[in-house]
Protein backbone atom coordinates (compact mmCIF):
# COMPACT_ATOMS: atom_id res chain seq x y z
CA UNK A 1 0.00 0.00 0.00
CA UNK A 2 1.84 3.02 -1.26
CA UNK A 3 1.69 6.67 -0.40
CA UNK A 4 0.08 8.78 -3.06
CA UNK A 5 -0.53 12.48 -3.46
CA UNK A 6 -4.02 13.93 -3.83
CA UNK A 7 -4.99 17.45 -4.86
CA UNK A 8 -7.40 19.44 -2.73
CA UNK A 9 -10.28 20.44 -4.98
CA UNK A 10 -12.71 21.73 -2.40
CA UNK A 11 -12.79 22.74 1.22
CA UNK A 12 -15.99 23.18 3.14
CA UNK A 13 -16.47 24.34 6.70
CA UNK A 14 -19.03 21.99 8.21
CA UNK A 15 -18.99 23.58 11.68
CA UNK A 16 -16.69 25.94 13.59
CA UNK A 17 -14.33 23.09 14.26
CA UNK A 18 -14.90 20.72 11.38
CA UNK A 19 -14.00 20.88 7.72
CA UNK A 20 -14.53 18.53 4.80
CA UNK A 21 -11.69 18.18 2.33
CA UNK A 22 -12.46 16.90 -1.16
CA UNK A 23 -9.51 15.36 -2.95
CA UNK A 24 -8.78 14.23 -6.46
CA UNK A 25 -6.44 11.25 -6.62
CA UNK A 26 -5.10 9.76 -9.79
CA UNK A 27 -5.41 6.01 -9.87
CA UNK A 28 -7.46 5.73 -6.68
CA UNK A 29 -8.56 2.09 -6.48
CA UNK A 30 -11.90 2.86 -4.84
CA UNK A 31 -12.95 2.09 -1.31
CA UNK A 32 -15.64 0.45 0.77
CA UNK A 33 -17.84 2.56 3.02
CA UNK A 34 -16.29 2.76 6.49
CA UNK A 35 -12.67 2.54 5.45
CA UNK A 36 -10.11 5.19 6.23
CA UNK A 37 -6.88 6.67 4.93
CA UNK A 38 -3.63 7.58 6.63
CA UNK A 39 -2.58 11.18 5.97
CA UNK A 40 1.05 12.20 6.28
CA UNK A 41 2.34 15.75 6.59
CA UNK A 42 6.00 16.68 6.16
CA UNK A 43 7.51 19.99 7.19
CA UNK A 44 10.41 21.54 5.31
CA UNK A 45 12.89 20.34 7.90
CA UNK A 46 11.71 16.78 7.45
CA UNK A 47 9.52 16.62 10.54
CA UNK A 48 6.59 14.30 9.85
CA UNK A 49 3.24 13.65 11.46
CA UNK A 50 0.72 11.04 10.43
CA UNK A 51 -2.97 10.53 11.35
CA UNK A 52 -5.87 8.37 10.19
CA UNK A 53 -9.12 9.85 8.88
CA UNK A 54 -12.28 8.06 7.84
CA UNK A 55 -13.43 8.44 4.27
CA UNK A 56 -16.69 10.36 4.41
CA UNK A 57 -17.56 9.95 0.74
CA UNK A 58 -19.41 7.05 -0.84
CA UNK A 59 -17.57 4.51 -2.95
CA UNK A 60 -19.04 5.97 -6.12
CA UNK A 61 -18.52 9.65 -5.30
CA UNK A 62 -16.28 11.46 -7.81
CA UNK A 63 -13.99 12.85 -5.14
CA UNK A 64 -12.59 11.42 -1.97
CA UNK A 65 -13.83 13.37 1.03
CA UNK A 66 -12.25 13.49 4.47
CA UNK A 67 -14.07 15.24 7.30
CA UNK A 68 -11.65 16.46 9.96
CA UNK A 69 -12.33 17.90 13.39
CA UNK A 70 -9.77 20.35 14.76
CA UNK A 71 -8.79 19.00 18.15
CA UNK A 72 -7.11 20.99 20.89
CA UNK A 73 -3.34 21.07 20.39
CA UNK A 74 -3.83 18.99 17.25
CA UNK A 75 -0.87 19.69 14.97
CA UNK A 76 -2.32 17.76 12.02
CA UNK A 77 -6.00 18.57 12.47
CA UNK A 78 -5.33 22.29 12.87
CA UNK A 79 -3.31 22.26 9.65
CA UNK A 80 -6.01 20.40 7.75
CA UNK A 81 -8.88 22.52 9.05
CA UNK A 82 -7.22 25.96 9.15
CA UNK A 83 -4.29 26.04 6.73
CA UNK A 84 -5.01 23.74 3.79
CA UNK A 85 -6.05 25.50 0.57
CA UNK A 86 -7.49 24.39 -2.78
CA UNK A 87 -4.77 23.07 -5.08
CA UNK A 88 -2.60 22.04 -2.15
CA UNK A 89 -1.35 18.50 -2.25
CA UNK A 90 -1.98 15.98 0.50
CA UNK A 91 -0.05 12.77 0.92
CA UNK A 92 -2.11 9.77 1.94
CA UNK A 93 -2.39 6.01 1.63
CA UNK A 94 -5.32 3.68 1.59
CA UNK A 95 -8.02 2.63 1.61
CA UNK A 96 -7.43 0.85 4.89
CA UNK A 97 -9.64 -1.34 7.02
CA UNK A 98 -11.59 -4.55 6.54
CA UNK A 99 -13.45 -4.59 9.84
CA UNK A 100 -15.48 -1.40 10.03
CA UNK A 101 -17.04 -1.63 6.57
CA UNK A 102 -20.59 -1.97 5.31
CA UNK A 103 -21.71 -2.74 1.82
CA UNK A 104 -25.17 -3.58 0.65
CA UNK A 105 -24.33 -7.25 0.20
CA UNK A 106 -23.96 -7.53 3.98
CA UNK A 107 -27.66 -6.77 4.37
CA UNK A 108 -29.29 -5.49 7.50
CA UNK A 109 -31.34 -4.08 8.97
CA UNK A 110 -28.70 -1.45 9.60
CA UNK A 111 -28.20 0.64 12.73
CA UNK A 112 -25.71 3.48 12.63
CA UNK A 113 -24.77 5.18 15.91
CA UNK A 114 -22.60 8.28 15.56
CA UNK A 115 -20.97 10.47 18.19
CA UNK A 116 -19.50 13.80 17.08
CA UNK A 117 -17.11 13.43 14.17
CA UNK A 118 -17.82 9.69 14.19
CA UNK A 119 -20.56 10.54 11.72
CA UNK A 120 -17.96 10.63 8.91
CA UNK A 121 -17.65 6.92 8.05
CA UNK A 122 -21.33 6.39 8.79
CA UNK A 123 -22.23 9.09 6.26
CA UNK A 124 -20.21 7.10 3.71
CA UNK A 125 -22.27 4.03 4.60
CA UNK A 126 -25.53 5.96 4.40
CA UNK A 127 -24.65 7.43 1.00
CA UNK A 128 -23.73 3.97 -0.25
CA UNK A 129 -27.03 2.60 1.00
CA UNK A 130 -28.96 5.35 -0.82
CA UNK A 131 -26.96 5.18 -4.06
CA UNK A 132 -26.75 1.43 -4.41
CA UNK A 133 -30.49 0.89 -4.73
CA UNK A 134 -30.37 -1.22 -1.60
CA UNK A 135 -33.63 -1.69 0.25
CA UNK A 136 -31.96 -2.44 3.56
CA UNK A 137 -33.79 -0.47 6.27
CA UNK A 138 -31.44 1.88 8.09
CA UNK A 139 -31.72 3.83 11.30
CA UNK A 140 -29.15 6.48 12.18
CA UNK A 141 -28.85 8.08 15.60
CA UNK A 142 -26.42 10.98 15.68
CA UNK A 143 -25.28 12.52 18.97
CA UNK A 144 -23.64 15.94 19.08
CA UNK A 145 -23.20 18.61 21.70
CA UNK A 146 -25.35 21.22 20.00
CA UNK A 147 -27.26 21.89 16.84
CA UNK A 148 -24.42 23.96 15.40
CA UNK A 149 -22.11 20.98 15.86
CA UNK A 150 -24.21 18.58 13.76
CA UNK A 151 -22.10 17.78 10.73
CA UNK A 152 -23.96 17.22 7.41
CA UNK A 153 -27.18 18.14 9.14
CA UNK A 154 -29.19 19.03 6.03
CA UNK A 155 -27.99 16.02 4.07
CA UNK A 156 -28.85 13.69 6.94
CA UNK A 157 -32.27 15.27 7.50
CA UNK A 158 -33.02 14.87 3.79
CA UNK A 159 -31.87 11.26 3.88
CA UNK A 160 -34.25 10.67 6.75
CA UNK A 161 -37.15 11.53 4.49
CA UNK A 162 -36.29 8.72 2.12
CA UNK A 163 -38.09 5.41 2.28
CA UNK A 164 -36.59 2.95 4.68
CA UNK A 165 -34.29 5.54 6.24
CA UNK A 166 -34.82 6.92 9.74
CA UNK A 167 -32.49 9.64 10.99
CA UNK A 168 -32.63 10.95 14.54
CA UNK A 169 -30.48 13.44 16.36
CA UNK A 170 -29.72 13.87 20.01
CA UNK A 171 -28.08 16.95 21.50
CA UNK A 172 -26.23 16.61 24.76
CA UNK A 173 -25.67 20.22 25.80
CA UNK A 174 -28.47 22.20 24.27
CA UNK A 175 -32.18 22.14 23.67
CA UNK A 176 -32.99 24.75 21.02
CA UNK A 177 -36.49 26.19 20.78
CA UNK A 178 -38.72 23.95 18.76
CA UNK A 179 -36.24 21.08 18.83
CA UNK A 180 -37.91 17.83 17.83
CA UNK A 181 -35.07 15.47 18.48
CA UNK A 182 -33.70 13.93 21.66
CA UNK A 183 -31.80 15.97 24.18
CA UNK A 184 -29.57 13.74 26.22
CA UNK A 185 -26.50 11.54 26.05
CA UNK A 186 -27.18 8.12 24.61
CA UNK A 187 -28.35 5.55 27.10
CA UNK A 188 -30.00 2.16 27.04
CA UNK A 189 -33.52 3.54 26.65
CA UNK A 190 -32.57 5.73 23.72
CA UNK A 191 -30.79 2.91 21.97
CA UNK A 192 -33.69 0.53 22.60
CA UNK A 193 -36.00 3.07 20.95
CA UNK A 194 -33.82 3.52 17.92
CA UNK A 195 -32.43 0.08 17.28
CA UNK A 196 -34.46 -2.89 16.16
CA UNK A 197 -34.96 -5.58 18.82
CA UNK A 198 -32.26 -8.27 18.92
CA UNK A 199 -34.62 -10.74 17.24
CA UNK A 200 -34.29 -8.69 14.03
CA UNK A 201 -30.52 -9.23 14.17
CA UNK A 202 -29.51 -5.78 13.00
CA UNK A 203 -25.99 -4.98 11.87
CA UNK A 204 -24.81 -2.16 14.09
CA UNK A 205 -21.95 0.26 13.41
CA UNK A 206 -20.88 2.58 16.21
CA UNK A 207 -18.33 5.36 15.69
CA UNK A 208 -17.25 8.26 17.84
CA UNK A 209 -15.22 9.06 20.96
CA UNK A 210 -14.29 6.07 23.08
CA UNK A 211 -16.76 6.85 25.87
CA UNK A 212 -19.63 7.14 23.38
CA UNK A 213 -18.75 3.88 21.67
CA UNK A 214 -18.45 1.98 24.94
CA UNK A 215 -21.73 3.30 26.30
CA UNK A 216 -23.51 2.35 23.09
CA UNK A 217 -21.90 -1.07 22.81
CA UNK A 218 -22.58 -1.91 26.45
CA UNK A 219 -26.20 -0.85 26.03
CA UNK A 220 -26.66 -3.04 22.98
CA UNK A 221 -25.17 -6.05 24.75
CA UNK A 222 -27.37 -5.42 27.78
CA UNK A 223 -30.38 -5.37 25.44
CA UNK A 224 -29.38 -8.77 24.14
CA UNK A 225 -27.82 -7.94 20.79
CA UNK A 226 -25.28 -10.34 19.29
CA UNK A 227 -21.76 -8.94 19.80
CA UNK A 228 -20.81 -10.48 16.46
CA UNK A 229 -23.25 -8.11 14.72
CA UNK A 230 -21.81 -4.98 16.36
CA UNK A 231 -18.83 -3.18 14.86
CA UNK A 232 -17.09 -0.36 16.64
CA UNK A 233 -14.58 2.32 15.76
CA UNK A 234 -13.25 4.62 18.45
CA UNK A 235 -11.99 8.05 17.54
CA UNK A 236 -9.49 10.02 19.54
CA UNK A 237 -6.15 11.80 19.46
CA UNK A 238 -3.19 9.70 18.40
CA UNK A 239 -0.44 12.30 18.30
CA UNK A 240 2.34 11.78 20.80
Amino acid at each position, binding site marked *: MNWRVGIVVDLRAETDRVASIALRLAGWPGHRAGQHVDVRLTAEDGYQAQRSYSIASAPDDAELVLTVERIEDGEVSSYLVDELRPDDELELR*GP*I*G*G*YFVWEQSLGGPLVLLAGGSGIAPLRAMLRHRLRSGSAVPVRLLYSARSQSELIYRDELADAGRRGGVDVRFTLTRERPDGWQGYDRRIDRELIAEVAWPPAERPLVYICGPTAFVETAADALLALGHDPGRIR*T*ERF*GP*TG*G
Partner: protein
Amino acid sequence: MLDGNAIAGLTVDIFGVDMTVAVATCARCGSHGPLAETAVYMRGPGVVVRCRHCDAVLAVVVERRGVYCVDLSGLSALEAVTDEESRIST
Protein backbone atom coordinates in the same frame (compact mmCIF):
# COMPACT_ATOMS: atom_id res chain seq x y z
CA MET B 1 -7.41 4.80 24.38
CA LEU B 2 -8.54 3.62 20.96
CA ASP B 3 -9.08 0.29 19.28
CA GLY B 4 -7.35 -1.87 16.70
CA ASN B 5 -8.81 0.14 13.82
CA ALA B 6 -6.26 2.83 14.71
CA ILE B 7 -3.39 0.50 13.84
CA ALA B 8 -4.82 -0.95 10.64
CA GLY B 9 -2.22 0.85 8.52
CA LEU B 10 0.55 -0.26 10.88
CA THR B 11 -0.52 -3.91 10.50
CA VAL B 12 -0.30 -3.51 6.72
CA ASP B 13 3.27 -2.25 7.17
CA ILE B 14 4.17 -5.15 9.43
CA PHE B 15 2.20 -8.07 8.01
CA GLY B 16 1.62 -6.91 4.46
CA VAL B 17 -2.13 -7.14 4.93
CA ASP B 18 -4.73 -5.44 7.13
CA MET B 19 -5.00 -7.54 10.28
CA THR B 20 -7.92 -5.77 11.93
CA VAL B 21 -10.24 -8.66 11.11
CA ALA B 22 -7.73 -11.25 12.32
CA VAL B 23 -8.84 -12.98 15.51
CA ALA B 24 -6.51 -12.31 18.44
CA THR B 25 -6.46 -14.67 21.44
CA CYS B 26 -5.16 -13.37 24.78
CA ALA B 27 -2.45 -15.63 26.18
CA ARG B 28 -3.42 -14.70 29.72
CA CYS B 29 -7.21 -14.99 29.84
CA GLY B 30 -8.03 -16.78 26.61
CA SER B 31 -10.59 -14.25 25.40
CA HIS B 32 -10.57 -13.69 21.68
CA GLY B 33 -11.97 -11.36 19.08
CA PRO B 34 -10.97 -9.28 16.08
CA LEU B 35 -7.82 -7.23 16.49
CA ALA B 36 -10.03 -4.23 15.67
CA GLU B 37 -11.74 -4.70 19.01
CA THR B 38 -8.60 -4.70 21.18
CA ALA B 39 -7.62 -1.70 23.30
CA VAL B 40 -4.83 0.27 21.68
CA TYR B 41 -2.60 2.89 23.33
CA MET B 42 -0.69 4.90 20.77
CA ARG B 43 0.46 8.04 22.45
CA GLY B 44 3.77 6.92 23.77
CA PRO B 45 7.18 5.51 22.96
CA GLY B 46 5.46 2.62 21.21
CA VAL B 47 2.08 1.12 20.40
CA VAL B 48 0.65 -1.10 23.12
CA VAL B 49 -2.22 -3.44 22.33
CA ARG B 50 -4.10 -4.73 25.37
CA CYS B 51 -6.78 -7.31 26.01
CA ARG B 52 -10.08 -5.57 26.53
CA HIS B 53 -11.11 -8.10 29.16
CA CYS B 54 -8.05 -8.45 31.38
CA ASP B 55 -5.78 -5.53 30.31
CA ALA B 56 -2.88 -7.91 29.59
CA VAL B 57 -0.41 -6.64 27.02
CA LEU B 58 -1.08 -8.54 23.80
CA ALA B 59 1.43 -6.85 21.54
CA VAL B 60 3.92 -4.00 21.51
CA VAL B 61 5.30 -2.26 18.45
CA VAL B 62 8.29 0.04 18.74
CA GLU B 63 9.62 1.85 15.73
CA ARG B 64 13.35 2.36 15.98
CA ARG B 65 14.87 4.36 13.18
CA GLY B 66 12.64 3.00 10.44
CA VAL B 67 12.52 -0.59 11.68
CA TYR B 68 9.48 -2.04 13.42
CA CYS B 69 10.23 -4.19 16.47
CA VAL B 70 7.14 -6.27 17.09
CA ASP B 71 6.48 -8.29 20.22
CA LEU B 72 3.45 -10.57 20.01
CA SER B 73 4.17 -12.69 23.07
CA GLY B 74 0.91 -11.66 24.77
CA LEU B 75 -1.05 -13.37 22.01
CA SER B 76 -1.48 -17.11 22.04
CA ALA B 77 -2.96 -16.88 18.55
CA LEU B 78 -3.53 -14.37 15.77
CA GLU B 79 -5.58 -15.91 12.99
CA ALA B 80 -6.08 -14.16 9.70
CA VAL B 81 -8.28 -15.25 6.84
CA THR B 82 -6.35 -15.17 3.62
CA ASP B 83 -9.08 -15.27 1.02
CA GLU B 84 -8.80 -12.92 -1.91
CA GLU B 85 -11.71 -10.78 -0.84
CA SER B 86 -10.04 -9.57 2.31
CA ARG B 87 -6.85 -8.83 0.38
CA ILE B 88 -8.73 -6.63 -2.06
CA SER B 89 -9.96 -4.42 0.77
CA THR B 90 -6.39 -3.22 1.49
